[in-house]
């Protein structure tokens, strides 16, 4: 046993290789392998008459995705929702994460962490359906608006074209609320992690040099929180781009990318189109990350 240990200790490369082979096999085949198998389908097309996949490399399916007006609509609708959800999550998460890290006493901070993560321990479907009830026409939210005498305000809000609808649960506004609720923890946690790495002395130095609290927030806290903001927004952005359950349970009838992938590879049996659609979020995230990098989001790393 000692001889084996010594043998491996003297050959770190071999040791690391032996340790890494099983997890790498798992990661390579199950994670990346299946993903590439799906993506590979996107360069094929489907025969319109036989509904069979034609195994000849072609860009026709991609062309279909980015030229057909209905498909472009789906992409734009999903993208706008993802952008709106990401901005809202960031706006809500930043003060919460800052409070947790900077001001809360250790006990309160622990409570906040539990509070942030508690909803994530519950079934996703249960939460979505619960929200459908909360947002329903006779639901608790409209009751609350009525009780506060704001029923008219809610009606006016629901009459706004684009985001409105017959009720909150059948509007893009309602869908937006559920998305924000669902992905908020994914924004708070990386943000809190980033803010925790900012030493207190930096904020004190800023105040010491004459910066008022708002200036310190803008020139020190925010730039140093950017990597966390970037990480969190990749979560909220990509989760919104890929989700198909929330748009099918809550909100207006328009299709989202995730629903399209689900419909195409399931009922329609058009695997190439489903695959091409799943490439869209990947490309959008890559564009987003490039823009974020160019804006200096990762400079403080």
């Amino acid at each position, binding site marked *: 046993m000692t001889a084996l240990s010594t043998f491996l200790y003297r050959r770190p490369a071999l040791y690391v290789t032996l340790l890494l082979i099983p997890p790498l096999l798992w990661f390579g085949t199950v994670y990346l392998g299946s993903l590439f198998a799906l993506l590979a389908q996107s360069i094929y097309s489907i025969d319109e008459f036989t509904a069979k996949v034609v195994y000849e490399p072609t860009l026709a399916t991609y062309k279909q995705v980015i030229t057909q007006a209905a498909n472009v609509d789906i992409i734009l609708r999903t993208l706008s929702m993802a952008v709106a959800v990401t901005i809202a999550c960031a706006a809500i998460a930043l003060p919460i994460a800052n409070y947790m890290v900077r001001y809360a006493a250790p006990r309160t901070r622990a409570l906040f962490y539990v509070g942030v993560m508690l909803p994530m321990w519950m079934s996703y479907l249960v939460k979505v359906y619960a929200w459908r009830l909360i947002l329903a026409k006779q639901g608790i939210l409209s009751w609350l608006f009525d009780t506060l005498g704001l029923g008219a305000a809610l009606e006016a809000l629901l009459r706004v074209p684009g985001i409105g609808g017959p009720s909150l649960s059948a509007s893009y506004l309602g869908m937006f609320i559920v998305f924000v609720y669902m992905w908020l923890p994914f924004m708070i946690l990386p943000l809190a992690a980033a803010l925790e790495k900012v030493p207190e*002395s*930096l904020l*004190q130095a*800023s*105040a*010491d*040099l*004459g910066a008022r609290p708002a200036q310190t927030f803008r*020139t020190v806290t925010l730039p140093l929180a950017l990597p966390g903001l970037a990480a969190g927004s990749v979560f909220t952005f990509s989760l919104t781009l890929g989700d198909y359950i929330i748009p099918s349970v809550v909100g207006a009838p328009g299709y989202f990318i995730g629903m399209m992938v689900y419909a195409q590879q399931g009922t329609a049996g058009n695997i190439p189109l489903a695959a091409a659609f799943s490439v869209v979020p990947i490309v959008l995230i890559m564009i987003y990350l490039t823009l974020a990098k160019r804006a200096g989001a990762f400079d403080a790393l």
Partner: protein
Amino acid sequence: MTAAIEFRDVSRVYGEVRAVDRVSLTVEAGEFFAMLGPSGSGKTTCLRLIAGFETPDSGSVLLNGRDVTDDPPYVRDVNTVFQDYALFPHMSVLENVAYGPRVRGQRKEDWQRRALEMLELVQLGHFAERRPSQLSGGQRQRVSLARALINQPRVLLLDEPLGALDLKLREEMQIELKNLQRRLGITFVFVTHDQGEALSMADRVAVFNHGRIEQLDTPRALYTRPATAFVARFVGSANVVAGELAQRLSGRAEPFAVRAENIRLRAPAAPVNGDTMSCIGDVADVQYHGAMSRWQVRLESGEVFAAAVPDTNSNDEFRVGARVRLEWARGDAVPLTAAESS
């Protein structure tokens, strides 16, 4: 002329701990003032009270004669060099130094010129475009100094600024800081746990222990005339003699201090001079320090004395376990007058 800093009966309490306990002190304008003490003695809290990062629970803090007790840091005319330098990692060296003028809304031409001047002052002009992470510890320390001085504060606070530097750099920076202070005429308040640093740099030193000032004096007075046993031990590494032994040696019950370098080692049978005090013990340990050696000698009554003896061959007769006579001049016994704070 009004004092640069004045504490009036200032206390700061954390739960059960009185970090600063009814401290009153005055720092004159243009003075190089050191706050010396072990960790947890309250010296850093005092510095933070001056900067405004802490608010006293009672008492008041005055800067240049004005009560600033409730003023936030960003309106106080003081700047701080932090122990960890606290340089902004997402800004260049130039932007770090220019931070003060920038948040005060100075024009770009002005802050750029001023920041470059400050960087020249600390001899880092050609590092302006670097990031703090690309600098060495000593260079970061200079940037931090330039950043604090650009606002032309009346008081500069330094929180253990040399703690993270190696010995040679630390000695260079001590001289440089001292020169800088003389040239700029700014009041420097310097927090350190290193008594050598405090003695060599400061005009006056406040020795802190348990949240109180044990003694506030010039370095020479602290070293030669410590008022309490704590100061004698902490500043001079002196031997404190108290109780029965003090009675036997000096004829009086008051405790007194003898510095290690004033003690000579003699053979037990050597003749005793009337102007000296002496006692006999066994060598417990010898540490070689180059120019001198530090001897630990245990008396029969249990007390341990430290004697710093120049390293000469004449001590060769004494080994660990050998019996020696400790001897010092009566004049080298410094009576400890002030009462010991608990």
